[in-house]
């Protein structure tokens, strides 16, 4: 029950931070961070696959409605929700390494960094190319993917130090 409230608050807080703060500060045309993916990153490891997918869809869909980009965020978040168990299996060397909570506090820094990097990059890659819906600006879009990913990863790691310490 406590978990339900905690994750609901996190859902709302991340969506609002995304649409009210990060979507409004347009640092430069190349940096558009999307930190709401943190919600999918921080769900407990034992979360069943279907729940992960549905929650991923919901948070993407919520951001879509706010930013008039119907389906774009939802498609990207469903994808990373789907690959999440595989990514965790891939980067955890031994079974006992795996913690129930994939946050920074419960895991090694290098583990959390590679976990975040893979997930954020896949998300941003899907998102930006779907948003442009063309490969004609391939390199400038790729630059956006890279720069925005780096920025998002930075903000997510930082937020782990500041807010989500519990």
């Amino acid at each position, binding site marked *: 029950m406590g978990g339900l409230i905690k994750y609901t608050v996190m859902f709302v807080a991340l969506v*609002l931070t995304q*649409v009210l703060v990060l979507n409004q500060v*347009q640092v430069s*045309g190349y940096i558009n961070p999307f930190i709401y993916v943190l919600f999918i990153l921080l769900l407990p490891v034992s979360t069943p696959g279907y729940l992960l997918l549905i929650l991923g869809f919901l948070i993407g869909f919520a951001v879509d409605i706010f930013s008039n980009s119907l389906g*774009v965020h939802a498609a990207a978040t469903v994808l990373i929700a789907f690959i999440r168990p595989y990514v965790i299996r891939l980067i955890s060397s031994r079974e006992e390494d795996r913690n129930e909570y994939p946050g920074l506090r419960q895991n090694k820094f290098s583990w959390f960094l590679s976990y975040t990097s893979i997930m954020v990059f896949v998300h941003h890659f899907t998102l930006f190319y779907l948003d442009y819906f063309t490969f004609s600006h391939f390199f400038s879009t790729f630059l956006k993917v890279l720069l925005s990913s780096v920025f998002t990863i930075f903000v997510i790691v930082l937020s782990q130090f500041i807010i989500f310490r519990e």
Partner: protein
Amino acid sequence: MRSLIRYLIKNHAFVLFLLLEIFALTMVVNFNSFQKATYLNSANRVTGKIYDTYQSVTGYFGLTKINAELAAENARLRSLLENRPGVSLFSDSLAVDQMRNDSVYRFIPAQIINNSVNRPFNYLTLNKGSRHGIKPDMGIISAKGIVGVVGQVSESYAMGLSVLNQRWSISAKLKKNAYYGSLIWDGTDYQMAGLTEIPLHVDIAVGDTVVTSGYSSIFPEGILVGTINSFSKPEGENYYRIDVKLSVDFKSVSYVEVVEIKSRSELDELDKILRNDGRAD
């Protein structure tokens, strides 16, 4: 059959993943028809309210600049009015009545509560909706020039496509010789848009003013769009490639007016008749 069901249950995560992805991608591809559902865009009651509340807090930061802009526009309009014979600023009721009946345009003031410039399709949200008289396809302008067009409207909020959106183009003309073309954003620089269909024999120069043509029923004629920043003559083509520097700064635009063209339904009716005639030929 049973093995199929067993397979689906075993791989339920993958099946659900495919279903959700197909659903999301269908929305991406059929964007326009889904947007018609007014609750699925930023003009719906919940998102509108959230943006509005947020704007009412952060709106204070830019007030000095906005005040200066409004004062400048007031001064400009006042000088226009005072120099017009027959119209006095402090006119009697009769004159006001006459103006109200004869006017072709009505301007509804609104505020932008959400806006973006860095996506290929940029949208804005306005704090006025159908109960203030806003309808889809009305033009949005600011003191500095055109801003966009209204897309979807809910009761109290409206979603608009800004000029920085590749899903539409604007009928624009050169102010000095009235040659017209269409203005479309290329998705890169938020200060520049491309003007096409201006034939090579037309005399143009850097700095020429571009205004709306008035040929569509969205904007009145002569609203500022921008100035020519640079132009080139592409090999083997009959038209210039013109870069127009937009007069509106889309990063700071805040107070706008929505234009209602009162004869619009008549114009659209005529347009429909003409198009049907064309098809009959």
